[in-house]
């Protein structure tokens, strides 16, 4: 018994030694230095982390993002990987709990030594993980449209910051619908409040319009009867909404039940993507508008290929919302930066991302380019929802410069 044990161990050791010496030879021959960054890089693999909520209340939203990241990584691997190395995924569950995000980030960076992490969804989870990424010098690709007011060396933001999403949409509704009066309503936390602050400044100072009401409801609230009556009393030209999560469904169902429909009332929302429509139901949204940078219905060959590949991998019934597409960009942006830097080293990848004008020419949403401030130049689109849960784009802006610290809007 004992001798057998020793024997098999000995063979393993021999094998490992052989592997190491072989590997070392190839390493010297092909890409010197790439493996010596202290990250989990070998001659044919590089490890990355995916960190989203697979359980808990946020799993609804984050499922699509992690599916898109896996699709991008699979496609990159099929093309031969990055610097000749296949990407290996280590997936962790943030469990909709913000301290867990910090803890799992530390595990990914310190124990697994991943070269990059694709993850987080809510601002709260990002804020919790951020100190870890800054301390351990990790690299996070963050996919959600968010309130701005942040720029970390260790984060690349692939969604829109607030001014990109808000200003173009408000300009459109003022011009196209002649809107003068606005009723602002959102869920009660940082993203809607910051967004509404920017919207109010823009409405009052730039568009010369008037905000006739501003209201925040607790997260998870399902009763909108009183607010709807207030709105009816104020008769705004536009209802401007950022209600999130389960509340969103109640909000739109009750609007429809109260006879406020897309036929009579202009409503522009910041928080409805194709993902939310599954719950809300197309019939409750018909005729209302969303402002986002991406819609599944975008009519261009890159998007069609993306939608097809996504459905092949994750099922015919899956839908793709704004954040899902932004999450898909993360691995591609990382690939472009790593290849240009010739290294997985975080400092080098960040430097290239800031200075080299990393761009994706054929992203599903169209051309995007990294700005030195770590956000993306992107277009903003307004689309009208149809009964079938898809949206028709009615307006498309030019490329908008990201401006996470907008002067005059704070």
């Amino acid at each position: 018994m004992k001798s057998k044990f020793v024997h098999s161990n000995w063979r393993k050791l021999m094998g490992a030694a052989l592997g190491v010496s072989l590997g070392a030879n190839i390493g010297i021959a092909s890409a010197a230095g790439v493996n010596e960054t202290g990250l989990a890089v070998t001659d044919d693999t590089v490890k990355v982390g995916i960190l989203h909520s697979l359980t808990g209340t946020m799993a609804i939203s984050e499922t699509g993002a992690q599916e898109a990241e896996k699709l991008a990584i699979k496609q990159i691997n099929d093309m031969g990987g990055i610097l000749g190395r296949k990407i290996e995924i280590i997936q962790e569950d943030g469990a909709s709990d913000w301290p867990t995000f910090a803890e799992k980030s530390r595990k990914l960076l310190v124990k697994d030594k991943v070269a990059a992490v694709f993850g987080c969804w809510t601002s709260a989870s990002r804020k919790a993980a951020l100190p870890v990424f800054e301390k351990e010098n990790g690299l996070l690709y963050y996919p959600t449209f968010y309130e701005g007011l942040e720029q970390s060396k260790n984060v690349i933001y692939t969604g829109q910051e607030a001014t990109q999403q808000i200003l173009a949409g408000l300009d459109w509704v003022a011009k196209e619908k002649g809107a003068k009066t606005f009723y602002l309503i959102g869920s009660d936390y940082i993203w809607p409040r910051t967004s509404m602050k920017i919207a109010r400044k823009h409405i009052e100072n730039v568009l010369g319009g008037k905000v006739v009401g501003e209201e925040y409801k607790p997260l998870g609230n399902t009763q909108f009867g009183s607010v709807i009556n207030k709105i009816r009393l104020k008769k705004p030209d536009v209802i401007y909404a950022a209600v999130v999560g389960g509340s969103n469904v109640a909000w739109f169902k009750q609007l429809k039940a109260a006879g406020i429909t897309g036929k009579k009332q202009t409503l522009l929302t910041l928080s409805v993507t194709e993902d939310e429509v599954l719950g809300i139901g197309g019939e409750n949204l018909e005729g209302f508008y969303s402002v986002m940078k991406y819609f599944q219905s975008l009519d261009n060959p890159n998007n069609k290929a993306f939608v097809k590949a996504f459905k092949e991998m994750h099922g015919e019934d899956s839908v793709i919302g704004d954040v899902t597409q932004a999450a898909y960009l993360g691995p591609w942006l990382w690939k472009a930066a790593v290849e240009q830097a010739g290294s997985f080293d975080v400092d080098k990848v960040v430097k290239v991302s800031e200075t080299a004008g990393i761009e994706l020419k054929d992203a599903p949403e169209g051309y995007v380019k990294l700005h030195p401030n770590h956000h993306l130049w992107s277009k903003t689109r307004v689309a009208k929802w149809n009964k079938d849960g898809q949206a028709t784009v009615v307006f498309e802006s030019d490329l908008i410069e990201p401006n996470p610290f907008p002067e005059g809007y704070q």
Partner: protein
Amino acid sequence: MGYSADEMMAIFAMQGFAGISLFSVLLLMALGLAIIFGQMGVINMAHGEFMAVGAYTTYMLSVLSEEFFPGFIQYYFVFAIIASFIIAGILGFLAEFALIRHLYKRPLDTLLATWGLSLIMQQVFRSVFGAREVSPTLPDWLLGSYQPTDMIDIPLNGLFVLALTFFVTLGVFLLMFKSRWGLRVRATTQNRVMSSAVGINTKMVDRLTFALGCGIAGIAGAAFTTIASTGPTTGSLYIVDTFMVVVFGGAASLFGTIASAFSIAQAQSILEFFISGSMAKVITLLTIVIILMMRPEGLFSIKVRK
């Protein structure tokens, strides 16, 4: 502000209905819990999850009828409510048999056990139906609004929940106060040993009471699919409001539950109209806390021999 009298009247009417609608929602949520808490002294932390069972039952029937009997979609909702009652009731019956009955002498442990049950049920929902929230397809007669005049819109789903709450409450009253079974339940509550001595099967009474409470939670869940969406954690959204209504009303009294639901709903909806939603909630909760400090037993209480 410059509103005509007609407009003010219309808003007044609609706002009044908003309050009544919230009242019916709160009452429907709380009824099942009030029965279980009031008659058995068990605090059912999984109450919200039994509501979710009803909501998911409705969703499944909606999917099934869309798939196999498209013509049936206008009527399935009625059957969904009945099915929700039965399925949630059966699950409640089993939960009492497997779990609750072993813990009657340890009230704090029932709290923990039913909380554990709620977590298990949430994970089952997540594994079976996925993490995304779902909504059943509603029949046309539940969508839109009733317009008595040009300016007044009364939501049809609100009217529906109101009517449903009325009938369920009426049913519970008849069952509790006019039927032989209700007599046995009340007898067991008042004096378990004596009831047992005169031949009442108190164990079966407990089991059916728990099943009834859970079944009513199932009805509430089915009804709320007309208002909001259903996800694995939907139940935990409702549980706080539900407990608030039951505790404020006085744990052992159905009248108290009704009065409590009415006053909370009216306070909430009137305040919401004049100040912001979050502040309205704060003021309502503060008022409840103050009243409970003065009357710890709640609005109404029945004296029970312990």
